[in-house]
């Protein structure tokens, strides 16, 4: 099933506008609230043999998609289309964070980021060789996690005192027990095979207060994908993500000791609830010195991640600069204190 959102004014294809958070018509400028979009303007078309092929309603061309694509553009007429059957049933997202950064803002934010690159080559800093910007909804699983931790540890306290000419060092050992209830909300893990996990982790955090119940019109005008991994497959990844958080929480509950050594640390975490959610990401494809560099930008906060080229000269410059200036400062201090340079 292919869905077009037709403008109630002029009949052109509408697309989501990140500025207003509404559907907007590129030809007449009409804006339409997503919650109140008139049913009769949603054009649905079932294709025969649909699992394989979709046809654009406007021009009849075959819509070329990959198996994971859930929203795209017609490659001939450019109309925004949403592939509805890939967003229903098991594949229906529960939540979505809409784009709040438009393409122009994304370009500007990316340029600003390249200008701030202190270790990148001069040519890269201009940020003017963006080959392609793609706004994409990336599938994530968000997990509500609950669990318990049972902790046994030995803590020590050390104090020293002096009697006559003898120094006594007393080490007190304590048995420490903690029973902890754990609860973490909406911990994300990206469910797309294509996306680099490390890159996606660095895009966090998203502002969940702007999270909406999923509606298809949010996807109009963007690329979107469906998940490749279900929430059971990804749970181990999310677990490995929160274990360090849990560890650091546990250590905050044990205080006042000079040293703590854990004798037994039993952490039991279960998923309580999962939400299939689409997060907004701008993918930036950038050409530099005959190589394509890929960056990702949080479509909500504008945070940019990805490996930029590194200039060895600048690294050396920073290193010598910092080393030389800190050496000079220390020498100056030691001269001020001691009165001697060497």
């Amino acid at each position, binding site marked *: 099933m292919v869905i077009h959102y037709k403008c109630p004014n002029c009949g052109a294809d509408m697309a989501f506008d990140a500025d207003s958070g509404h559907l907007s018509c590129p030809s007449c400028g009409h804006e339409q609230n997503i919650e109140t979009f008139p049913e009769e303007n949603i054009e649905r078309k079932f294709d025969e043999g649909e699992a394989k092929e979709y046809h654009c309603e406007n021009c009849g061309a075959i819509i070329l998609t990959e198996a994971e694509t859930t929203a795209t553009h017609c490659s001939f007429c450019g109309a925004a289309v949403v592939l509805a059957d890939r967003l229903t049933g098991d594949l229906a997202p529960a939540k979505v964070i809409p784009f709040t950064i438009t393409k122009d803002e994304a370009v500007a934010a990316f340029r600003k980021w390249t200008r701030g690159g202190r270790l990148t080559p001069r040519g890269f800093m201009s940020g003017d060789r963006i080959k392609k910007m793609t706004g994409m909804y990336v599938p994530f699983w968000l997990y509500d996690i609950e669990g318990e931790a049972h902790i046994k540890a030995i803590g020590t306290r050390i104090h020293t005192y002096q009697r006559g000419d003898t120094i006594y060092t007393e080490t007190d050992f304590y048995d420490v027990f903690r029973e902890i*209830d754990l609860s973490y909300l909406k911990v994300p893990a990206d469910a797309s095979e294509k996306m680099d996990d490390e890159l996606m982790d660095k895009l966090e955090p998203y502002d969940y207060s702007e999270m909406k119940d999923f509606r298809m019109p949010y996807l109009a005008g963007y690329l979107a994908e469906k998940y490749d991994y279900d929430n059971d497959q990804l749970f181990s990844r999310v677990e490995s993500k929160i274990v360090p*958080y849990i560890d650091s929480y546990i250590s905050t509950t044990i205080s006042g000791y000079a040293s703590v050594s854990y004798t037994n640390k039993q952490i039991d975490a279960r998923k309580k609830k999962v939400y299939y959610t689409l997060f907004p990401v701008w993918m930036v494809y950038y050409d530099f010195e005959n190589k394509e560099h890929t960056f990702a930008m949080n479509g909500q906060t504008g945070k940019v991640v990805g*490996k930029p080229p590194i200039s060895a000269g600048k690294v050396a410059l920073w290193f010598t600069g910092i080393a030389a200036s800190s050496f000079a400062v220390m020498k100056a201090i030691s001269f001020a204190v001691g009165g001697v340079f060497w």
Partner: protein
Amino acid sequence: MRNPAKRIFIASLFLMLLVIGGFSASAQTGELIYDEAGLLTEAEAQELEALAKDYGEEQNVEFLFLTTNSTEGQSIERYMGDFFDERADSTGQEAAVLLTIDIGSREVYLAGFGTAERTLDAERIDLVLDRIMPEMQRDDYGGAFRDTVVTSSHYMEYRPGVNPESIFLKTWFHVTIALLLAGGIVGAMLYNVGGKVTTTPGTYIDRDHTRVRSQDDRFRNKTVTRSKVPQNKGGGGGGFGGGGMTGGGRSFSGGGRKF
């Protein structure tokens, strides 16, 4: 004439005119080295004399070397004090660093007079003694004096009260810290160039439901270790001194050791 220094200076000028060579009769060499115990060879004495003179002019003090076979029943502190009183009265030179060796009781004493009392204080004298003790124990007395002159001159360039051997004043320490700092900062910049992880352990925590349900901290046992309060300066056969006043009323900084 209110100024006692001036008075002493003029008095000593008179004395000098009257009794030139009065003390130098017992001094085998020049005017800085009084090797009454005969620990140095003629050549050695001359070389050290020249060295002491060079360094002394630079620091505006006199580097003096006194050796004796016996302190005639007095303490070495007293003995060298008397020697210096007599010498200062006759030469008018009040600023001096004096290394005294009593070969009879195998004691060494280093003292700073005049300006050297401040620029070579007890702490620095201790450091110099640390330096020369190995030479003393090898019976290399010329070497000990040479080291005293060179090391004291070096120390006296530092502001008074500062420990000249402090690690914070060492160039190698500055270089190491500078390199570590630069390496750390640039390393962190490189590490974060692809974007920082900005989630924290608190990002996804549910504060309403994450809590300590029960806790218990129970004392189990204790261990006690004893150690003696460290005594200052054990090495080199016991130290003494710390400065004082000569019989002639000159105050000095000082320190001595047995060897």
